[in-house]
């Protein structure tokens, strides 16, 4: 199906040379940045809890966790800041047709996002370098503006994406964009739910990734207060998020029927409008035929419309030129839902068992599952973004601006795409190596991690 979709995209013809590389580059750089953005949004709040515990309960283990997580966030936030900058540049480099025409419609939330990024960067600097240099309580407080900035920043960035799904705050007369109201664009009808969906997802990604690290440690036999606490606090955050997420996703999904029927049809792999509509699990659409899908009657109507028999629109009512790449959209959407459901189940299982007096942190199979929940949460976020972005095609701004018209007309964009690929692979390798070496040195008892070129320490001096 990848091939079919790629061929379809290529066969469309008459498109600017920048279209395909611009899409690919945006997908890679956004998909890469979103993981780090999750850490920027959720990590300060999680660190706050262990740091506060360390101070209030005089818990040296909790304080030690906070110190380590602060150092980890120094690395993650640095590459998050630069990969976010890449996206800012790409708005203009790849999508001049969007920014040149609609910059003053969609730009205001970006300006507010800039403010929150400022606040986060400033207090990050103070927090990271404030250890042992400020009063402990004031130092702890530095995390609060970071957490708040994460909320505001998520809202603002998602606001722009929600606007692309629900264009508002302007009208088009004679091809001119007029009657611009940036506030109406910012607070478009889709923003609140989409924001909530992503904000909660950030806590799932970070909570499960961090707790997975400590689950791995416990599997290796390092069962102590340090690992138990390092597992439980982020896992608790992730649990609340993972249980809330299916409900948020469901409410969000129900709106798609009214706002983007083509996307819903692709999500559901629906060719014809059916009532009641079945749910097709998996499967692909090949030459107008659904294959290899597990069809469950009625469930489509229940899930997408919250009703026993409400119709789910099919692709038949949509001109062929306005179909999104159906199979990618469908499979990405169902991967997200499947993983999300699984993660909600895993977290529920843990707390139910704990309520009944079983500590699953001692169960090797449960710990093994926990190790992979972090990567799974990342996969769910990526799938979700693929589903919503690919599902909106061929539009960049829903029924207002086609992606062909938004993309750069420049040739040679394949080179910048290759550069991005190489650069991001390099940054990924660098980050993994550095973080692993930090963990190794911590296990060896080196708390402070001085730089290797730093002043010679007394114990290493001859």
């Amino acid at each position, binding site marked *: 199906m990848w091939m079919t979709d790629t061929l379809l995209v290529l066969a469309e013809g008459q498109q600017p040379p920048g279209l395909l590389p611009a899409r690919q580059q945006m997908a890679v750089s956004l998909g890469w940045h979103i993981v780090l953005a999750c850490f920027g949004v959720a990590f300060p709040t999680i660190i706050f809890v262990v740091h506060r515990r360390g101070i209030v309960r005089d818990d040296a283990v909790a304080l030690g966790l906070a110190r380590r997580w602060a150092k980890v966030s120094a690395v993650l936030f640095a590459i998050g800041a630069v990969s976010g900058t890449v996206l800012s540049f790409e708005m203009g480099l790849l999508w001049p047709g969007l920014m040149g025409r609609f910059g003053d419609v969609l730009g205001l939330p970006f*300006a507010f996002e800039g403010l929150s990024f*400022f606040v986060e960067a400033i207090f990050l600097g103070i927090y990271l370098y404030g250890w042992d240099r400020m009063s402990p309580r004031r130092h702890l407080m530095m995390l609060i503006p970071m957490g708040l900035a994460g909320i505001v920043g998520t809202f603002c960035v998602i606001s722009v994406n929600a606007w692309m799904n629900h264009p508002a705050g302007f009208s088009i007369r004679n091809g001119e964009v007029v009657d611009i109201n940036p506030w109406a664009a910012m607070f478009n009808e889709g923003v609140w739910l989409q924001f909530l969906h992503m904000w909660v997802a950030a806590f799932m990604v970070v909570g499960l990734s961090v707790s997975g690290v400590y689950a791995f440690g416990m599997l290796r036999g390092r069962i102590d207060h340090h690992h138990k606490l390092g597992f439980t606090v982020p896992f608790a955050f992730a649990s609340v998020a993972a249980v809330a997420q299916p409900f948020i996703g469901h409410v969000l999904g129900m709106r798609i029927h009214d706002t983007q029927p083509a996307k819903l049809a692709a999500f559901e792999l629906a060719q014809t409008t059916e009532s009641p509509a079945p749910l097709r699990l998996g499967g692909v659409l090949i030459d107008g035929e659904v294959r290899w899908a597990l069809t469950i009657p009625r469930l489509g109507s229940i899930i997408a419309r919250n009703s026993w028999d409400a119709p789910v629109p099919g692709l038949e009512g949509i001109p062929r030129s306005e179909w999104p790449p159906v199979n990618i959209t469908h499979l990405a959407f169902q991967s997200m839902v499947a993983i999300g459901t699984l993660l909600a189940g895993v977290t529920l299982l843990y707390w139910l068992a704990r309520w009944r007096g079983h500590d699953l942190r001692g169960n090797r199979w449960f710990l093994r599952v926990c190790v992979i929940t972090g990567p799974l949460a990342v996969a769910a976020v990526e799938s979700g973004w693929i589903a919503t972005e690919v599902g909106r095609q061929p539009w960049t701004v829903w029924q207002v601006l086609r992606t062909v018209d938004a993309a750069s007309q420049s040739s040679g964009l394949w080179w910048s795409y290759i550069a991005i690929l190489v650069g991001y692979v390099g940054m990924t390798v660098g980050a993994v190596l550095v973080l692993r070496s930090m963990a190794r040195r911590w296990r060896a008892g080196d708390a402070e991690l001085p730089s290797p070129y730093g002043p010679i320490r007394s114990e290493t001096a001859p």
Partner: protein
Amino acid sequence: MTLATVVAMAMFLGVILYALLGGADFGSGFYDLTAGNARNGARIRTLVDHSIGPVWEANHVWLIYILVMWWTGFPATFAAATTTLFIPLALALAGIVLRGASFAFRKYSATLSQARLYGAIFAGSSLIAPFFLGTVAGAIASGRVPAEGYGDRLSSWLNPTSLVGGCLAVTTCVFLAGVFLTADAARTGDTELAISLRRRTLGVGILTGVVVFSGLYPVIHDAPTLATGLRGHAFPLLIVALVAGVAAVTLVFRRRYAIARFPAAVAVGSVLTGWGVGQYPWLLVDEITINDAAGADATLTGLLIVVALAAVVVLPALSYLLWLTQTEEWSR
């Protein structure tokens, strides 16, 4: 004064602050690069870590601020610049990404050889980024970015004004960094390091002055509109830049490092303001004015609200950060 002009001024204030604060961070790369081998350079590199570590991300946000103000306030010119200046913008971006990532990686790398690799990338890319951003400024100032976009992808930034802009950006960054680092070294009580940095800062300071003022010669021939402005309204600013630059170098020479930071900032700020005033009222020189390029009034008003919020929310926080890092507070 129109709403558009006020927004343009707010955006240009971002350019000045980015050049001063972000510029000093970039310039540190030069001293890191020329610090010598691992043993001899350890103290400078550790000083660079301490000086820019807490502030570089905050200073970097000024660039985001500029981009956002630009595409929201003056959207069509933003698209015109990005389509024309794709190459230098992409190269500047590469420099920014490599600088930030390798700076963080180096600090926590386990072995000296890894630190060496990341350090070389950090230091080299620190100089690449301002150079290409400078060529972008030169392209705009010399009227090579057509209002409808998609200008010549090479000659738009491979020209005398752009090259002067690039060199000027690098030298001012290095000069600012030298003054700040020398002051930091002196504050931490490392007199020996301060003296060695002082020597280099003096050399760079004189070179920067030469680049700024000899750069005027090609610019006058290559960018007539800017040249007219520089000889007119912007002329006093060039005088201020000269006086402040001489004062900064003199103060560094007389080892008054802490005070020297102020005239150094004034000198660089004046050069930049001279560029802004010199090309006023053009946004893209010879192509489109600030007023004609502006987006919807409602959006411009929204941007000014953001600027006002920034003044209330960001400036106090930023001042707190700079107070912590630039005074005795954290030098103990």
